[in-house]
């Protein structure tokens, strides 16, 4: 039986801000942008959450719900520094650490540097170390697998420590709503609900073909989760599959030069990211959200893969021709790179073969 921890910092960005600025302590704080614009809440302190302020909520709405809200601009370099501190503590103990975000990780502590056989003791000691090193609190979930560990860490926050021992798994899952299952988003949840699957007990006990009707190919996976089974391993070096940036603008972009400039900047940022990892990207994807919120993506794949800023920017800008940005105001733009590899030339199998050689126009 494996021993997995899920460690999740409490209101991470907001907590860092409150730690570093005593004037913010005890007050509702939201990290994010200007409420008069279109920014969203990146993190909310627990004082702010009491007013209903949540992450990803438009800042304008957060201010309406919580009039005394103190808004702090994000400072990711500081958050990243704290994150590195925390992860070095984790890595000193656990051989397998899988980062999910700056403030969130899975640890496999079946074997650990402290030779501690009780995972709950590892979790307790790590919580103390994190608090001593950073002054911040972390909530921990302890369970036999990733799915249950993540459920457990969210059970009691902040500063929580929840253990789901193997013998308590069934009881824990009994009344768990289906939307807490890993992989169930709003759409799947709705389909499950209309078919009468409300809790894990329903998924576990009702016939599999009924579940298949509601959830399709996800059925067997959901059935496994509902039994508390999840054999995904903790992967310390999950290779990056893509990288990208997007931006919602304070005012709609309406002119092509402005749009090209933004796309170019984002493509160049992607090039920097690729260069830092010595990777090449074969695919560039452009995302456009128009002012009526319809959102489209356009991709282009080409061999050789590249990380040249100018080439990536060129490929991204060309994709604008397959959008309606000339005629419709643009609310959001995004550029991302996919199909990453270590070399510009990928193995021909399964990849696009360059059929003919090119006509020598130049």
């Amino acid at each position, binding site marked *: 039986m494996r021993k997995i921890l899920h460690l999740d910092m409490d209101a991470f960005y907001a907590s860092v801000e409150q730690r570093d600025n005593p004037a913010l302590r005890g007050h509702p704080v939201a990290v994010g942008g200007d409420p008069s614009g279109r920014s969203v809440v990146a993190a909310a302190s627990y004082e702010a959450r009491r007013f209903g302020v949540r992450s990803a909520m438009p800042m304008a709405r957060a201010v309406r719900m919580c009039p005394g809200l103190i808004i702090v601009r994000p400072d990711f370099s500081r958050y990243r520094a704290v994150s590195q501190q925390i992860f070095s503590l984790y890595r000193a103990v656990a051989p397998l650490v899988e980062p999910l975000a700056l403030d969130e990780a899975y640890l496999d502590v079946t074997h650990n540097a402290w030779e501690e056989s009780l995972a709950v003791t590892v979790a307790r000691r790590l919580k103390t170390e994190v608090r001593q090193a950073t002054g911040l609190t972390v909530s921990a979930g302890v369970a036999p697998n990733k799915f249950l560990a993540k459920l457990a860490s969210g059970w009691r926050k902040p500063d929580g420590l929840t253990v789901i021992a193997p013998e308590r798994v069934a009881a824990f899952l009994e009344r768990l709503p289906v939307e807490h299952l890993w992989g169930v988003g709003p759409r799947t949840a709705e389909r499950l609900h209309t078919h009468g699957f409300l809790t894990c007990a329903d998924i576990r006990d009702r016939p599999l073909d009924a579940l298949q009707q509601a959830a399709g190919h996800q059925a067997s996976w959901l059935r496994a989760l509902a039994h508390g089974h999840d054999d995904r391993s903790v992967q310390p070096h999950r290779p990056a599959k893509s990288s990208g940036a997007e931006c919602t603008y304070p005012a709609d972009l309406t002119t092509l030069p402005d749009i090209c400039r933004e796309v170019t900047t984002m493509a160049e940022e992607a090039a920097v990211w690729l260069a830092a990892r010595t990777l090449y990207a074969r695919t560039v994807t452009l995302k456009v959200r*128009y002012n009526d919120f*319809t959102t*489209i993506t356009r991709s*282009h794949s*080409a061999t050789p893969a590249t990380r040249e800023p100018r080439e990536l920017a060129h*490929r991204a800008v*060309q*994709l604008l*021709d*397959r959008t*309606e940005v000339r*005629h*419709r105001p643009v609310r959001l733009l995004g550029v991302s790179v996919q199909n990453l590899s270590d070399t510009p030339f990928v193995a*021909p199998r399964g990849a*696009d*073969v360059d*059929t*003919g*050689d*090119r*006509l*020598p*126009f130049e």
Partner: protein
Amino acid sequence: MDLVVRKADLVRELQFFQQIVERKNTIPILANVLIEATGDEMVLLATDLEVTLRSQTQAAVTRHGAVTLPAKKLYEIVRALPDGDVRLEADRNQQNVKVTGGQFSSKMPTLPREDFPTVTEPPDTPVVTLNRSALAQMIQKTQFAITGEDTRYYLNGALFVLKPTQMTLVATDGHRLALVTATREGQPTDDEKPILPRKALAELGRLLADGEGDIAFQRGENHLFFQVGNRLLMSRMIDGQFPAYEKVVPKGNDKHLEFERDRLISAVRRVSLLSNERSRALKFVVQAGTVEVTSSSPEFGEAHEPLAVDYSGPALTTCFNAQYVIDFLTAVESDVVSLDLKDEVSQALLKPVGVDGYDYTYVIMPMRV
């Protein structure tokens, strides 16, 4: 609006609008055709903001007005009606239109005419007359070489080169190039080189196929205008630099081969069945007296078929994408086609032999194997 129109007339016009309106367009009114009833005709208009078509047909108008209706649904309905008259009758607020024919009656909601985009009108620039059948030939022989969705947006169309005494259409996807030149008479023009989008070219091809007589061409600041009979096609030009096509048309290809077109296309089709599924590579093994067409693929095996040719030069082997060869052979009508080679790696030149009225040049870049 209240009008009566002959079913056959309306179906004929509406079918030209089916490719103009976009299936996946996110602006609802662009799926609609604008219908205006004035005098004794109905005017139809649709646009995707790049390509716009306007046409008119005779109608008995009892009440003037304008409505917009979904182009596809209207076409499906009218096409299904019995032969005879069709009546389109809008209610007072122009919010619904009754479409009736025979015993059938239907009612469709409209979208407001005011929401329909305004279209660019033809400018005051000189009108140039173009020969219909020459232009139709040129389109048919080049449009297949335009790339599908290329990020090099200037390749998503064909270059239209209009000179005082001749006109040329060029299309390429960067691997092969199709070029047709025809002589023209009529008023001389300044040299023009607009790039015409693929969609406009396809629509123009359809319009040219219906009816007879020369067509009128005008160039505006950003748009091109083609008046074909009672239909006016307006297209935005592709803004960009088309590649220097003259540079890739080979001059010194001294190894000349001629084939019966039927014989060659059958052989290429058969042999390509066993070509590599991804590359579609087809080898032409040229020797004195024969050209052997061969293919091989790791999954399926290999194939070859010899063709007798009148050739006594040095042996060489070159390799093409089978599809590019088939595209050319199906676009031409001549009994004999020629293939001119320089060496194994330089551009190959394909031409129909013994045709009048136009000059067709097709260039393929060999594959390296």
